[in-house]
């Protein structure tokens, strides 16, 4: 069975807590807060004002420039505020607040339940529709999908890789999506293939989800999806990383930055993104909701919700019942998720799950000195030397950190996870990566001017 070539770890997947919970439609929220940044790139501009009436699917934030994404209202009602509010990390960001009244949708949106498979649109039309629908990578990176599907001149896509890996422990939203919305995933995949002009697509699924592999294969055979193959992958974190997945599926390694996946002919999409693409292209439905897992060992109940964006995360945690004592609330899973410290924050596009970890699991061990065991080097999926990178960042030796390729780091956290001395390796590497990236960009800009 295939997997990516170097590094990686095997954390307990902890999926048993929520994997058998069918997707439930969450009750409509009374109020939604919509951040104008839910994507990588330029923030959207709010185009509504206090007092405006909006319908479900109406644009409230207009994208600015190519690398940006529209924000649509997920509810119908009245705009009550356009102001700065804290996000999950407490940082104040521009948000549009809408008070819900009823549930009226834009008429252009096809709300019938039947599956519409046939798509005869031209690639350009498909990409335009995806752009209008404000679709971003729903795996967590939130990179605008239309940018990804616009193949630069002189390059050619050869294969579409669909990410059904969900290597992050605890999370099950993609798993449930593959089980319950397989037709949408597959039609979405067909649309992506059409948009980038390739004949072959591979859905990578880790072998800890045999049901999903079997179900997808059955649907492909039953409905005759041509050129789509389901590839079981050996369970290993971080297989869901874009570069790791491409290497696992195609055997080709994307060269170091600034090279993109297209340089080896691959276009990668998450399964949930495929569903969003299907809905946008076939049903004219913009991105207003997603499947989100609410999970944790000590929660009263765990769920896989279909929730509208902008719903307060406190509502989701409330429904699950947060245990008392020391807890860590995470937007995402325990390997790459971000700590949530302000639960008034809204659910955003990139949030595939909310994980609650408690007590001992949440607390970090005592830092000891590095024993040079080399385990971080062994597990690094990018072939870096985390112990050096961390030290260089601590000493602020940015030029040396750059020489040691700190910008290659994908922040998967394998190094910190595996360190027997509990060193916060990634904490410092992240500083190094950010600083060096800034330096590199500034240098490139200066060179361009000349």
């Amino acid at each position: 069975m295939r997997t990516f070539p170097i590094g990686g770890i095997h954390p307990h997947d902890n999926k048993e807590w929520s994997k058998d919970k069918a997707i439930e439609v969450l009750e409509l929220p009374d109020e939604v807060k919509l951040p104008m940044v839910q994507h990588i790139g330029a923030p959207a501009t709010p185009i509504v004002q206090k007092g405006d009436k909006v319908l479900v699917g109406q644009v409230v934030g207009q994208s600015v420039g190519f690398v940006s994404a529209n924000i649509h209202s997920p509810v119908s009602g009245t705009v009550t505020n356009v102001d700065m509010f804290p996000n999950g990390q407490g940082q104040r960001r521009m948000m549009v607040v809408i008070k819900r009244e009823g549930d009226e949708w834009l008429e252009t949106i096809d709300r019938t339940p039947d599956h519409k498979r046939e798509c005869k649109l031209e690639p350009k039309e498909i990409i335009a529709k995806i752009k209008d629908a404000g679709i971003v990578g729903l795996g967590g990176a939130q990179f605008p999908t239309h940018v990804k599907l616009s193949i630069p001149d002189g390059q050619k896509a050869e294969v579409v890789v669909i990410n059904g890996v969900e290597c992050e422990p605890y999370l099950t939203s993609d798993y449930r999506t593959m089980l319950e919305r397989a037709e949408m995933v597959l039609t979405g995949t067909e649309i992506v293939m059409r948009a980038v002009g390739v004949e072959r697509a591979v859905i990578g699924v880790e072998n800890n989800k045999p049901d999903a592999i079997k179900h997808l294969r059955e649907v492909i055979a039953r409905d005759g999806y041509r050129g789509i193959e389901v590839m079981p992958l050996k369970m290993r974190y971080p297989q869901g990383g874009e570069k790791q997945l491409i290497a696992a599926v195609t055997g080709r390694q994307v060269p170091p930055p600034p090279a993109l996946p297209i340089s080896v002919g691959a276009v990668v999409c998450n399964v949930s993104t495929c569903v969003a693409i299907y809905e946008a292209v076939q049903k004219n439905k913009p991105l207003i909701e997603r499947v989100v897992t609410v999970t944790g060992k000590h929660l009263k109940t765990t769920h896989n919700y279909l929730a509208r964006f902008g719903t307060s995360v406190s509502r989701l945690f409330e429904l699950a019942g947060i245990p008392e004592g020391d807890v860590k609330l995470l937007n995402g899973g325990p390997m790459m998720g971000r700590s949530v410290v302000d639960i008034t924050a809204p659910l955003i596009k990139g949030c595939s799950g909310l994980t609650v970890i408690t007590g001992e699991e949440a607390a970090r061990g005592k830092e000891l000195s590095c024993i040079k065991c080399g385990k971080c080097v062994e597990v690094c999926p990018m072939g870096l030397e985390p112990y050096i990178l961390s030290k260089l960042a601590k000493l602020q030796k940015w030029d040396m950190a750059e020489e040691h390729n700190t910008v290659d780091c994908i922040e998967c956290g394998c190094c910190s996870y595996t360190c027997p001395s509990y060193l916060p390796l990634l904490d410092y590497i992240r500083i190094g990566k950010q600083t060096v990236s800034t330096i590199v960009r500034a240098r490139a800009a200066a060179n361009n001017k000349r």
Partner: protein
Amino acid sequence: MATRLFAAPSPHIHGGEKTRRIMLDVILALVPALAVSTYIMGWRVLLVTAVAVAGCVVFEYLIGRILLKRGSTIGDLSAIVTGMLLAFNLPVGIPWWIVLVGALVAIGIGKMTFGGLGCNPFNPALTGRIFLLIAYPVQMTDWTTNVPDALSGSTMLADVKGSTYDAAGNIVLGNLNLDNIDFMGMFGGHMNGSLGEIASLALVLGALYLLWRKVISWHIPVAVLGTMVVFALCVALSVGGGALCYQLPLFHILAGGALLGALFMATDYSTSPMTHKGMLIYGVGIGLLTMIIRLWGAYPEGMSFAIFIMNAATPLINKYCRPKRFGTK
């Protein structure tokens, strides 16, 4: 709400591996060899080991607390490992005060001077042993005191000393008479040597446990022993081949500290390279140097010096054997 909200950068979980657990694994892996040695050589093995371990732990505690003025680091159990390895490298009849001097050098000079665990460029136990070997050569090579009669005498490695070339350019292997050697006995521990290195079988078992626990990887032991085998084979062929082709390699692996060195001393984390490629180079270097010292050097055994020299080369190996960057060829 009695809930306290934690916040930290990702990752939020840990694999659960601890320095302490690794050290404990090494200690466990050394116990069978200790037991076999005690069975063969008597209770004094335990005494020497106890003195060495106690010395290392006490010196680490005192130096950390009084000289470096920081918290005690003995909880990580690394001092116990150093103590055991030091004892394993000593003859069983060694006076107790020499053991203590060795412990002081191992911990004081070999480890704490450089900042403690992980910062030492040389294996602390080896630092202690080499110091003793040079400072107390008589006691360190006295293989007769407190030893059962069956084992007394010189070590077999001393017999290969004086290997020379004859007039025709062929190698001549000293006084060694390989036909009289009981290889099975050597494997089980019936040979002369320092107290930890004789129990070959038990050492191999311990190393297999470490491999299974993923504390060490196969690269260094295989590279060291493999190089020694190949080297011995070449020597055997140049002498004349025949039965020597398997006798000489087997002899060199079983005799002296080859197994103890390759399996436990050379694999020490802080003094060995980080990448697998580096480990192989490091291992080959140790194997070569060991054989050169054994056959032509001034000392009968070269393992300690070979590891010591390659320890010095480790930073250099780390610099040139970096891991393969993802996406490059």
